[in-house]
């Protein structure tokens, strides 16, 4: 049901896109207005969400300590997973963001019944880590590669990236490694949500929708490169037109381009409304981005709540006799 709904939603988007692609009078809307709108929503929405997070304080320093604390000089501190310096936190965050450190720790718990009772075993489980890593890195490289449409002249670095990506020199035009990785990874991420019962159980429509949308974006991209070709010179002219705020709409671009760019626009517009904001959130997660120096440097809570205490004086008043009888010193005789 959730899967079906998400699929339908993406199909509707594709249909809308096809309608736009085959209606010449709508090309300006689909090629120029909608992309601008989507980018505005993306940037605006992203900033809005991050600022909204930022408006809530971090009242307590609550890093998850995932290694030995700094204590006695001869005990080796884990300076990355229990960092007491800014550098440690930077390394910790970089490992999380670039290499998904925590996901790398993933294990799989298995229960079996042995001759002497139940046995819980914790096996290695790196597939999710690997799949996510390939998915995100491929996505990033593909995005950067697309800069060749938006930059004129094209910087050498992007050309290098592209030639590495196409290093296999298979097919004409050459197959990009990232395209293959990306499609495989996104399919894996989808299939695990379908075939692992527990994961299927927790998955929402909001989990399938972006997967389908991203799949459709990748597919239309590949289709455009090999089967429904578009005029790349025209595409670039349109893109540069967008980037210089002098939009032009060259004729004869090819329908698949409009489908592709509409789906990309949908993703951009949807992004800030969704869980995809984990992209920004990961930077701000207090259990990871804080220095674990609680006992060394006081953390200030801006709203440090006033509360009522039961003071020693009240306590002594209640128990003075009993205290005296037990030989405990008191303030007032």
């Amino acid at each position, binding site marked *: 049901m959730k899967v079906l709904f998400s699929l339908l939603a993406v199909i509707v988007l594709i249909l809308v896109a096809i309608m736009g692609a085959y209606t010449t009078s709508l090309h300006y809307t689909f090629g120029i207005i909608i992309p601008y709108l989507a*980018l505005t929503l993306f*940037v605006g929405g*992203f*900033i809005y969400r*991050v*600022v909204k997070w*930022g*408006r*809530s*304080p*971090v009242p307590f320093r609550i890093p998850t300590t995932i290694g030995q604390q700094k204590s006695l000089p001869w005990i080796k501190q884990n300076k990355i997973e229990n960092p007491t310096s800014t550098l440690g936190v930077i390394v910790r965050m970089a490992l999380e963001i670039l290499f998904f450190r925590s996901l790398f720790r993933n294990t799989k718990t298995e229960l079996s019944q042995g001759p002497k009772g139940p046995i819980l075993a914790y096996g290695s489980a790196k597939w999710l880590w690997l799949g996510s890593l390939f998915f995100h890195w491929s996505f990033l490289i593909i995005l950067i590669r697309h*800069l*060749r*449409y*938006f*930059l*004129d*002249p*094209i910087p050498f670095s*992007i*050309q290098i990236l*592209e*030639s590495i990506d196409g290093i296999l*020199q298979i097919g*004409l*035009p050459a197959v990009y490694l990232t395209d293959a990785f990306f499609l495989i990874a996104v399919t894996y991420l989808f299939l695990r949500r379908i075939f692992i019962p527990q994961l299927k159980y927790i998955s929402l429509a909001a989990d399938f929708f972006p997967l389908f949308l991203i799949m459709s974006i990748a597919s239309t991209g590949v289709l455009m490169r090999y089967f429904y*070709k578009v*005029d*790349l*010179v025209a595409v*670039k*002219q349109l*893109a*540069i*037109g*967008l*980037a*210089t*705020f*002098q939009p*032009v709409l*060259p004729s*004869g671009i090819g329908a698949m381009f409009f489908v592709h760019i509409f789906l990309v626009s949908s993703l951009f517009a949807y992004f800030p409304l969704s869980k995809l904001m984990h992209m*920004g959130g990961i*930077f*701000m997660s207090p259990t990871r981005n804080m220095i674990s120096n609680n006992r060394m440097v006081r953390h200030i809570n*801006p709203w440090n709540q006033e509360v009522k205490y039961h003071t020693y004086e009240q306590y002594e008043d209640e128990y003075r006799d009993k205290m005296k009888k037990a030989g405990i010193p008191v303030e007032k005789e």
Partner: protein
Amino acid sequence: MYKGGKIIASLIIFVGLLTIPFFYNMGKVNAGPEINLDTPAILALAPADQQCVESPEVMKANHMQLLNQWREAAVRDGQSVYINSQGKSFEISLQNTCLNCHSTEAEKASVTGGMSNPAFGSTQFCASCHDYNAVQPLCYTCHIGSKEAAK
């Protein structure tokens, strides 16, 4: 905002990265490759013969496949004639067929010692479009460009 400085700085970096294309291209003219379809060689042809080997749409989308096919035919199979979809025959030759139209007289004159094809140094075909989109055909890995040959 709490720790607002860091957050705002990060957001500025993020938006800065996103808007690289806008700044990079600022003030530039949106100049695509200029491709003259009216070179003297083309104009010399009869109007009915002015179409390329295939229609412009097919050529735009599939010229790379066609060139691949021609290479196979000429180098491996020893064929020298290509018959297009309309039944018209063309000599399978980059130099004599493609570049006969797609180059200027000056470029033709610059060919030295049969080392290179004028196309590789041309401001028109092939480089102009390919440079525009940073598409690097594999031709150049064997065929040395004229500029380098000139050195």
